[in-house]
């Protein structure tokens, strides 16, 4: 048995999980943290309040120069980083704001991944390098006004007209829609569901922004209107048919969320911890009350367990052994627990907890979207329920 003195206790990493990261992984995290500290953190509460991101194109280019966009993809100008590094980046981005992480997830894991995995060589060379650089922004249209959790019943249709394809329908709740240069749109065809690479300048395509959101306000969310959008034969993603196409992309993005949600939680937990140390009631800091300590400790425990789960799943992904059910497990647990951490942090801040002067209510509201998108809690429960019992309870 070793008797040497262990390193000092770190309240922000109570279990010492940082030891499991390599120096390069920490370097990736540090670079993302620096970009966020300079370019996002001072402004994001104001963006959230105004429901906009200033100079979103400039910001996207800076994310591109750092290498974040499509960072876990190989070739075509992508950085080719590990899944662990991608996860760490998502965590840092979401510690700033879930809207920022959503921008990056949709760009890299949904739009770019769809083209990278299922696209033709021409589609890849045309779109991936500018998307990796942040010069072109992508969006991903699966959800529709009447179709959410059950994408197999989508109504958007693509029909053949000679060699061309003609798209009709509507997509709803599409992140980056109004600012996108290219939309990956999923539609029913005579050959099942297929994906299309749609330049947003194509006649018949429009993307009005969705207003009145109380969550992910520092993120662009849009409707896609497809009104006889005529596309050449080579606009279809050639390598996939059926729901497997969009689901494979969601699986990538969900993996990022497993990590990202923890970022929102960390930010809220740290805010609560420092607030509790400074706020005095009944003659002592509120962090000295057992009830507050119980909250802080529970938050810290769940954050720690979530971090271990995220890291474990990332190592599996890097080893090529990660199953989709395991991603569901991570998404279900980490978003749910992160939201709970944010809600508890909110109570510790008292009235200040509802103010945008602190990050907590912003993260809490953001995670309401994160809880729903990329598969609701119920959907992931049903996936895992089926995996565990062998019985499908979807319909």
């Amino acid at each position, binding site marked *: 048995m070793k008797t040497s003195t262990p390193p000092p206790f770190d309240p922000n990493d109570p279990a010492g999980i940082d030891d499991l990261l390599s*120096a*390069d992984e920490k370097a990736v995290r540090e670079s993302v943290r620096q970009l966020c500290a300079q370019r996002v953190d001072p402004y994001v509460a104001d963006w959230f309040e105004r429901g906009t991101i200033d100079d979103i194109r400039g910001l996207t280019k800076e994310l591109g120069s750092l*290498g974040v966009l499509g960072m876990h993809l190989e070739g075509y100008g992508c*950085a080719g*980083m590990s899944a662990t590094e991608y996860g760490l980046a998502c965590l840092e981005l979401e510690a700033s704001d879930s809207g920022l992480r959503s921008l990056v997830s949709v760009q890299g894991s949904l739009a770019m991944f769809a083209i990278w995995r299922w696209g033709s060589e021409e589609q890849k060379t045309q779109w991936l390098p500018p998307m990796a650089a942040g010069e072109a922004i992508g969006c991903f249209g699966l959800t529709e006004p009447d179709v959410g959790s059950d994408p197999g019943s989508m109504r958007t249709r693509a029909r053949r007209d000679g060699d061309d394809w003609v798209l009709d329908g509507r997509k709803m709740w599409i992140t980056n829609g109004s600012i996108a240069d290219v939309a990956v749109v999923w539609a029913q065809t005579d050959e099942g569901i297929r994906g299309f690479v749609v330049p947003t300048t194509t006649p018949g395509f429009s993307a009005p922004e969705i207003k009145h959101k109380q969550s992910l306000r520092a993120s662009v969310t849009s409707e896609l209107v497809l009104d006889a959008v005529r596309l050449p034969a080579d606009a279809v993603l050639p390598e996939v048919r059926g729901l497997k196409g969009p689901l494979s992309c969601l699986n990538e993005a969900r993996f990022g969320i497993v990590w990202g949600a923890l970022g929102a939680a960390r930010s809220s937990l740290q805010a609560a911890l420092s607030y509790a140390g400074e706020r005095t009631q009944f003659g002592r800091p509120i962090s000295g009350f057992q009830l507050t300590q119980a909250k802080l400790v529970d938050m810290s425990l769940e954050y720690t367990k979530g971090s271990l789960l995220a890291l474990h799943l990332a190592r599996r992904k890097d080893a090529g052994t990660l199953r989709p059910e395991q991603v569901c497990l991570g998404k279900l647990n980490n978003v749910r627990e992160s939201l709970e951490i944010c809600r508890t942090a909110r109570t510790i801040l008292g009235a200040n907890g509802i103010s945008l002067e602190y990050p907590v209510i912003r993260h809490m509201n953001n995670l309401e979207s994160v809880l729903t998108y990329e598969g609701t809690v119920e959907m992931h429960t049903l996936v895992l329920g089926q995996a565990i019992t062998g019985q499908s309870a979807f319909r």
Partner: protein
Amino acid sequence: MNIVVCVKYVPDAQAERTFNASDNTTDRDNVDGLLSELDEYAVEEALKIVEAGEGEVTVLTVGPAQAADAIKKALQMGAHKGVHVDDDAIHGSDAVATSLVLAEAIKKIGNEAPVDLVVTGMASTDGTMGVVPTMLAERLGLPAVTFASELTIDGGAGGTATIHRDGDASTQTITATLPALVSVTDQINEPRYPSFKGIMAAKKKPVEKWALADLGIDPSQVGLDAAWTKVEAFAARPPRSQGEIVPDEGDGGRKLAAFLTEHKFV
């Protein structure tokens, strides 16, 4: 343009810093360390010079095994190669000895291709003596233009280095012929953070490891025993005393102003 940037690996200023009880030297084993923030400006400035023209940036550090991290950070930022001088005998060296090791290492680097410019930070964030740059220039016989808040290179390798040095009352403009040594302040630029491509590329960049023997330095010339200065004793800083509360009896503003002038804050 062949540039050498001298960088130091220092204990993280955010962490609890201590001294070794046995010899009163800084404890570097039990704290996280990093590339001295003030040296990041030197790396950035060197990178800007070669990016605007051509050339190569070599980062040089003298320090224990962990100091490799400082080199790595500079390589991730974009420097081309690294040289790490590590030798147990160096432990406890003062500025005089450190400048000797740096000078000999730069001479050795210069054997391959002549060094046109040496860039350093203005001081380290741990020792904060700020004397190594001048000592180093003296040993190398180079003009020392120090505390640059701006640096312009004219005429490439055989040309000149012109700096701005900001004083309290005036700004000096100083020109030196190359080769020269320039130390830079934290006003000179905004250091970049490594891009992911930089982090990936750094894995393949060459880092040479040299010991004192490779530089022809006798161990007796360096280390704690050769040091001209020595830490005799150390004590923890006393806890902060209570702040002074100035009661406002209609003259609060005047009292505050008096306090600020008395302590030379304004």
